């Protein structure tokens, strides 16, 4: 949208990882349209607050619906959209600060509900929009604008957290690979339950980790990214847990349990028991 609107005043920094994630989401939505035949208007992008959330305004091509709400609350907004109209494809876009810090309390409940939405998290290990404060995924000891003597806390491991909370589909990706990333996102959208695609999306201004992630063999830097091997069985929870103990950043589908019932399906299962009454009947029950 923004390109046609000169008054729009948000821009990502050159080289920002979020450009790649935006491409990947566009690919995934188009891929899904081709797959399901549903119109673009059937997609709703619920955005968090931060650089990543602005993705909702920067999508190119035919536009989906979107909500750009308040900090940390993209998940419960998505809960309302999805449960109001379960036929919609609801996608959350948020960053590590929005999703894991202020919004962290909402991950567990959606996992328990198995809310059928896909959250794409852009992790740059820093609060970028507020200019470089430490976030849950900033390394311990790192000096940032809000940790002048080094970060005191340990770094959160989001994938381990999601696994522990019972998220039923967990994938890990990299913004520098939009095509493979789009496949992970599309798998997440197709997954009949709560899916999180956690993406390393570096901030070129405050926490540029491109080289650490991709490695620089000429200078003896081993890449932190490594592909999850094909023989990994994503339905095996213990295997997923073990995989995370190997360190670095695994790329691919870590965990996938599609046997669980999603919240919207579970609700349909209650209709028989409920025997809904008309308002006339409900009011009549108070007569005497």
């Amino acid at each position, binding site marked *: *949208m*923004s390109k046609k*609107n000169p*008054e*729009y*005043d*948000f821009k990502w920094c050159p080289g920002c990882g979020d450009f790649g994630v935006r491409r990947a989401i566009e690919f995934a939505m188009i891929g899904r349209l081709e797959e399901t035949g549903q*119109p*673009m*208007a*059937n997609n*709703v992008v*619920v955005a968090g607050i931060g650089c990543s959330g*602005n993705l*909702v*305004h920067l999508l190119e091509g*035919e*536009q*989906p*619906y*979107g*909500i*750009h*709400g*308040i900090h940390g*609350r993209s998940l*419960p*907004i*998505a*809960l*309302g*959209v*999805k*449960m*109001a*109209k379960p*036929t*919609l494809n609801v996608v959350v876009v948020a960053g590590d600060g929005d999703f894991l810090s202020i919004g962290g*309390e*909402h991950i*567990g*409940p959606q996992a328990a509900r198995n809310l059928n939405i896909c959250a794409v998290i852009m992790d740059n290990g820093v609060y970028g929009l507020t200019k470089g404060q430490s976030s849950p995924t900033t390394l311990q000891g790192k000096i940032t604008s809000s940790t002048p003597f080094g970060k005191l806390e340990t770094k959160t491991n989001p994938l381990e957290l999601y696994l522990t909370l019972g998220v039923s589909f967990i994938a890990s990706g990299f913004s520098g690979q939009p095509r493979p990333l789009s496949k992970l996102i599309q798998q997440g959208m197709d997954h009949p339950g709560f899916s999180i695609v956690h993406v390393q999306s570096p901030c070129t201004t405050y926490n540029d980790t491109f080289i650490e992630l991709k490695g620089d063999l000429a200078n003896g830097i081993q890449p932190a990214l490594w592909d999850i091997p094909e023989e990994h069985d994503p339905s095996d929870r213990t295997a997923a847990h073990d995989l995370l103990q190997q360190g670095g950043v695994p790329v691919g589908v870590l965990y996938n349990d599609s046997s669980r019932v999603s919240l919207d399906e579970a*609700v349909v299962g*209650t*209709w028989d028991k*409920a025997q*809904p*009454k008309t*308002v*006339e009947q*409900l*009011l009549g029950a*108070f*007569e*005497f």
Partner: protein
Amino acid sequence: MQMRDFVVRFAGEGGQGVVTSAEGLAQSSTQVGYHALTFATFPSQILGGPTWTQARISVDPVLSAGDDVNVLVAFNREAYDAHQQDVLKDGVVIFNSTEFEIEGDDRSFGLPFEELAKSTGNNRAANMVIMGSLAHLINMPQEHLISFVQERFNRGRTEDAEIIKSNIEALSLGRSHIAESGFSLGELAPPEKPKEQQVMIKGNEAVSVGAMAAGLDFYAGYPISPATPILLYMERNLVGKDRLAYQVSSEIEAITAIIGAGYAGKRAMTATSGPGVSLMSEGLGLAWIAEIPLVVVNVQRGGPATGLPTKTEQSDLFGCMFPAHGDVKIPIIAAGTVEECFYGAVKAIEWAEKYQGPVILLSEMALAERVQNITKPDLSKIQEAKRVEYTGSNGYLRYAGDELSPMPIPGNPGAYVANGSEHDHMGDTTHLGEHHVHMTERRFRKVKLLESDDYESDQTDNSIAILPWGGSKGPAQEAYNDLKKAGLPVSWYYTMFLNPLPPKMLEELKKKDLVIVPELNYQGQFSNILRSMGVKAESITQYTGLPFKARTLVAKITEMTNANLKEATRA
């Protein structure tokens, strides 16, 4: 002379049947054609703790819980000590003589109700023993009570006959026991059965059914006293295709979930109390700026933070009208009676859809837990609320125009971003001053669509007016009726629409020398707001956790009126 009404207070320990006794009395009285209203207050704990409920039974429609107590039923010593001073000199105290003794109070009558119940073979009939003795005190015919018992316990089970028999026996025992003592209050005038079909309903239930009558589709909530019964009612009844009631994990989830649902085209609502509203602040601001219809019901309790969870107060008006940062003023409807809990909810859903934004319906603990007979609402006169939906093609400018614009619904053409950042016509974020000016004015202009001339007034020629709001309406009306009879020159105004106020009423109020606002808070919140609008308003405040007594208001209003008139003559 025959009595036209009387008040019975039941006091004891939670779990002793205090509430069921009062509600049973109210129920049986309405069944024979009286009007009844209960008032309850509980401790905030699961079991035990001092609790009391009172029922006012009247030949005429009941406006308040009543100033004085004619009969106190004390289940234990503490209850007697705490409440005996509220009992009239010629009243009666029925106490549980199995538990304790009272000496030196000639109003007291010991009734071993638990033992008497046991003697009928039904340990659970103690309530009926009490009711039998109450019936004697007011000379209520036994057949009224018998028909109540028959209706209540006729549940199609084999043991029904046995239960009915033991309960009737308990009624008779209570009656004969007190008859021997010679205690009597006189005779309650015979009932004048209301012409219209009545329903016996609590404020929280009335809110729930009202919202559903207006077409509520989606409810998300989190348990909190005293709003929980709305959540429970919805979870049982707002079920089926295209409807949902769901318990979420916090009030933050509740407000944001209904934002999502309202955006997706549903008539959405949550109910909470003060602490929940505090957590919903930011969400209310989002619904306001992004123009998303939704309703928040605030069943007010007392105090800040956890405050007084089970007491009543009207101290959230500021917090609800101005709940969020930035320029925000939320439309407010405040229910003053159980009936208005129903119609207020209907209106709140209608308003939200009409102006495409958040609406707060204020209720109060004293209304929420009050059971009262009201005329059964005529559902054929209530329309499902509808918003103006966008039906065009893509490329729509959602936020174009000076006030309301049709709202696209996800799934249909017209995709846009509902934006919580300041935005331009298409919903794109912008920081340009001209857009902020335009959008701010657009949002306030939309509220004007809700203005109506819906208010009550009486004796409007007087220069001094009474203007209660919310649940203080009942006691204020009772006071006003007395003052009118006594010839005090005051006028009466009332509306449940606090924002926007009915413009005609506001114009009239601005011409008054004094507008007296009875309200249950320390700061005089409504009179503050009225003064900012150019009304010479002054509050009568009370913050005890209990509703006003009509008598208190009669005295204060008389005093304020006379002082003002004196001042006027001197000038």
